[in-house]
């Protein structure tokens, strides 16, 4: 049995459009597969979407908390990539086209998805412009 997490638009679900953003997608959809068949579908809201920073980490946490063993992603920032790897999740790369969750799960079952090779965009990629970078301060020991 595997539980596959996917970032999704809207409120999620099998017919929802897959979201190429990971850290700041609207929702996550979790599909449980057993013997190549869909057993359960669950959707949760992504409360990390509005985070100033560390959205990728919080999003990875949501995915982990919901028991996912694998994820399918589009664009992945450095924090998200590091976090998903730290959780030992198998990460698959979605092709660069608009697909629904159902369509991606079908591709997965057919073994047509390639493995994700790591972060492929910079930090804050999914945010609208105008949010600062920062990263200066911090305290010493």
């Amino acid at each position, binding site marked *: 049995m595997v539980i596959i997490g996917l970032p999704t638009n809207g409120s999620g679900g099998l017919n929802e459009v897959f979201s190429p953003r990971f850290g700041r997608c609207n929702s996550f959809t979790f599909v449980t597969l057993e013997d190549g068949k869909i057993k359960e579908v669950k959707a949760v809201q992504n409360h990390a979407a509005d*985070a100033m*920073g*560390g959205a990728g*980490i*919080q999003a*990875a*946490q949501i995915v*982990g*908390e919901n028991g996912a063993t694998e994820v399918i992603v589009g664009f992945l920032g*450095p*924090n998200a990539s*590091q*976090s998903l790897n*730290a*959780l030992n999740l198998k990460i698959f790369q979605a092709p660069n086209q608009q697909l629904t969750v159902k369509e991606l799960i079908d591709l997965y079952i057919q073994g047509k998805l390639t493995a994700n090779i790591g972060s492929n965009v910079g930090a804050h990629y999914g945010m609208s412009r105008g949010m600062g970078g920062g*990263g*200066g*301060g*911090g*305290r*010493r*020991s």
Partner: protein
Amino acid sequence: MSQRPKVICVTGGKGGTGKTLVAVNLAIMFKNDGYKVLLIDGDVENPNTYLLLGGSLENKTEVPFFIPKIIEDKCTKCGLCAQNCAPHALLHIPDAFPIPILAVCSGCKLCYKICPEEAIEADSKVIGWTYSTRVNDLSLFIGELKPTEARSATIVEDLLEDLDDIIEKEPDKFDIVVLDTAPGAHCDVEHLIKKADFVIPVTEPTKFGKLDLIRIIDLILLLKKDYRAIVNRSSLLGFRDEFLKELKEKKITVLGDIPLDDEIVNSYCQGIPLMEKNSDFDKNGAGYVAFKKLFANLKEWIQLNSDKNTGGK
């Protein structure tokens, strides 16, 4: 009368205007007058005050940055650390050990402090160094950020904590402290401005110079500090009078200006400060005379300020 040293911060926003030139020579002039002076180089990405003084980097001390280390034998996986981590630098899912994501860790040590099982150890990495040396009867503190590290403000904080220690334990060790900042208006510069009693932004008579000066003054005023600007290379392209007039129109107070002078370049190249007491530089040169005048204006400003604080004479 307060024994605490007077702190002067030389900044500017725009890079290459002559902050270090001014900071070093002000320090030298105070020293010549018999004051006990500490010069702190807070431009930790490019520390070079010691070059202008013909000094070297000594007494190298590492600046550590906190790294949380989870002790799995003690950790109960309660997740309290992750819940309270403001930058979300601890990844925690139920029934798993928290995973530090070091790239976003701010080093605040909250996790280390609140863990109910004391299961987080304070590990550290070196993010830079500080140096302290004595050259030319001046005490010199220098900070240096390790290349690829981003937190210059942390090195500056380390330098300022050393300063705080001195002010608290040996308040009359120094009469004057001069702070040299990096270019820009980032938080490393902010920390140094905040520490100062007097702030001197250094600019040049160009459009860039004026804009960056206005920007750094915005920061200085936001921090509720008193400032007087210096226009360096004032004779550049003959813009001096016009530029000073523009600053006056913007109600920007000017401490003085320094014209172009080959002797200044010579002093740079030789690593001997222009205003060094027994130097061979032309004492009637335009640069030398300008610095003397600046120094007199600065002392007057300091006196004015202390009259104000003691209720006037």
